[in-house]
């Protein structure tokens, strides 16, 4: 059974980024959405890109975006610059499923705690997921796996379903379907609308959440 929690947070009382340094394990996306470092997290749904982008922005380190040509070629840095530091991005274009998984494994395993976004065209088996999870534990970074196919039983720490919502401002519903530590829940995130020039990654973390069933 999915446990639905309702959480509220104000725009002002978000945890400052400095707090992340004292608690290096968890990544804070605002409004109490916590992602553990050294773990992989699965994201599905049409809003998965934004979830991954916000997580990468909170991680504040080099970002590797690994995917097939069709996924890498559609990325638009002019759109991403509002949330990410584009100069820290590395794009890895794989030509097969094997290369995708190998590249993700190497990137997660590498020392330095990279943020790795893996654009998976289909789904992951338990074995593959477990290997990526072990690699992430070794490297200390964070792995975000964007699943385009159905999510199976996997070794990831959490699984999220993210959908954009029709609202006045850009808004998303983030549902944590699975959490190894039982941290499921449902969040309604609202952005601040179109970004102004010169804003950096930190600002977009200021998202207001509203109660939602």
């Amino acid at each position, binding site marked *: 059974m999915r446990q639905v929690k309702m959480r509220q947070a104000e725009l002002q009382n978000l945890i400052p980024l400095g707090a992340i340094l004292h608690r290096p394990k968890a990544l804070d996306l605002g409004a109490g959405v916590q992602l553990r470092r050294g773990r992989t997290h699965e994201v599905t749904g*049409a*809003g998965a*890109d*934004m979830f991954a*982008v916000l997580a990468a922005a909170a991680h504040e*380190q*080099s970002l*590797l975006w690994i995917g097939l040509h069709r996924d*890498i*070629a*559609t*990325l*638009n*840095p*002019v*759109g*991403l*610059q*509002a*949330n990410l*530091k*584009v*100069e*820290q*991005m*590395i*794009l*890895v*274009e*794989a*030509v097969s499923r094997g*290369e995708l998984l*190998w*590249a993700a494994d*190497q*990137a997660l395993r*590498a*020392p*330095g705690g*990279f943020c790795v976004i893996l654009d998976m065209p289909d789904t992951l088996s338990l074995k593959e997921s477990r290997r990526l999870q072990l690699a992430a534990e070794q490297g200390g970074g964070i792995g975000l796996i964007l699943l385009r196919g159905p999510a199976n039983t996997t070794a990831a720490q959490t699984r999220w379903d993210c*959908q*954009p*919502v*029709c609202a006045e401002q*850009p808004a998303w519903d983030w549902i944590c379907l699975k959490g190894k530590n039982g941290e499921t829940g449902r969040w309604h995130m609202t*952005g601040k609308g*179109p*970004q102004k*020039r*010169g804003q950096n990654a930190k600002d977009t973390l200021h998202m207001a959440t509203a109660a939602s069933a």
Partner: protein
Amino acid sequence: MPRILSIWLPQLPLDRLTRQGDTRLSGAFAVIAEEGNAWRLVHANDAALAAGVKAGQSLADARAICPDLLTEPSDPVREDLLLRALWRWADGLSPRVALDPPDGLLLDITGCAHLFGGEVEMGHEALTRLSDLQIQTQIGIADTKGAAQALARFGAREVSVAQPGQTADALAALPVAALALPDKMVSELARAGLTTIGHLYQQKSAELARRFGLRLTRQLGAASGVEPDPVTPKAADPTYAARMTLPEPIGFLEDLENVLQRLAAQICGRLENDQRGARRFQLTVRCVDTGDHHMGIGFARPCSDPEAVLRQFSHPLSKLEIEYGADWFRLSAEHIEPIRLKQGSFGEDAKRADQRLILIETLGNRLGFDHIRIFHPRDNHVPEHEFEQIEAAGASPVWQAAPRPRPIRLFTPPEFAQVEQPGRPPLNFKWRRMSFTTDRAHGPERITPRWYREDDPRTRDYWRVQTQEGRRLWLLTYPGDETEDWYVAGEFP
């Protein structure tokens, strides 16, 4: 008194092909190059010359004169490589060798000639050695660079020597073109009746300078030793390579790695002493049964660390299939670049940059460096041309923020959307087999591509559409078109 030996390689491009065993050279053959809009002959072999073809002719003329003529475009890069190889080879004659591109070498043989039994003997020795390499040569020896070059190119014999102090006499009989003057000046001199260098001696140099310019008197002075014109020798670039031959073939991976470690330690030690690093390493493993296997690895920055070389080679080595063992190994470093010494891995940022580069190398060596990329800004306002992806290795990441709100996914070319209920933008449409209903739309944003550059010069209208289903799409239409087709150009977060 310095003594200079000039080696002229008149047929270097032909010699290169001969050395490769090109069978076409047995008949009429010429090397051609594109000059202006015409192909012209640069070098022709003896058979072609005998048929009446001349260097400098256009290819069409030459074909008309000699229909059997076979040709090959010239390859300046390979010719330069051959010349540079000869530059290294010339170490055996004199320690002070300079390149004289495109087709010559200059050797300062002061105090060297007696080792070969005299200057003439030395010239013949060089000639013999080069003809062993299948390279045609003419040699001139004189007191000055200009005179030696003139004798090599215009001397009557294969080895022309001007005795010490008699340079001017030796040059007197040569035509004025031997002074390396432009063609126009040579013809002007000929019109004035001055055809040999001896004629120039009889004129006052002030008169010559006034009529033909200072260049003529300067060249004449340099050739006859009045003005200094020294050879500035430069040592050839060192090659960083090491090889190992074993008495018995080996086949185990750890043995191969031991061999590689020794080779890498040797090369990297030399690189490090010279404060240099290599961007590529090439390993050749010669198996006793299957021949040579070549493996290459690349680095994102100049590297002189044997550990890193080993680490990157571990993948290609593990793929190598050896049945009966290998007994010959060669490791060479390529793309040598100087390493600027910096305090390594001290600060957190430097450490992170190191880790990033190591990761790029690891991924690039398996997936190909062209598959590891970063974004680079471009000066353009058309959405799909505002940026490009460039290779991450060797590029320094920069990004200039563009001020426009743009989608995070951009579809190029835009994907067709089937309009169910028309409107501007459509009230109802289908995209990727999903139905969307427009809730709110913001637009249009009109973008006109640069008509003089872009493939598709049509004006575009973009709309930001919030659909009732939730997704925020970037719709596109071309306002000038007869058919009001709509496309999805991107997706906002």
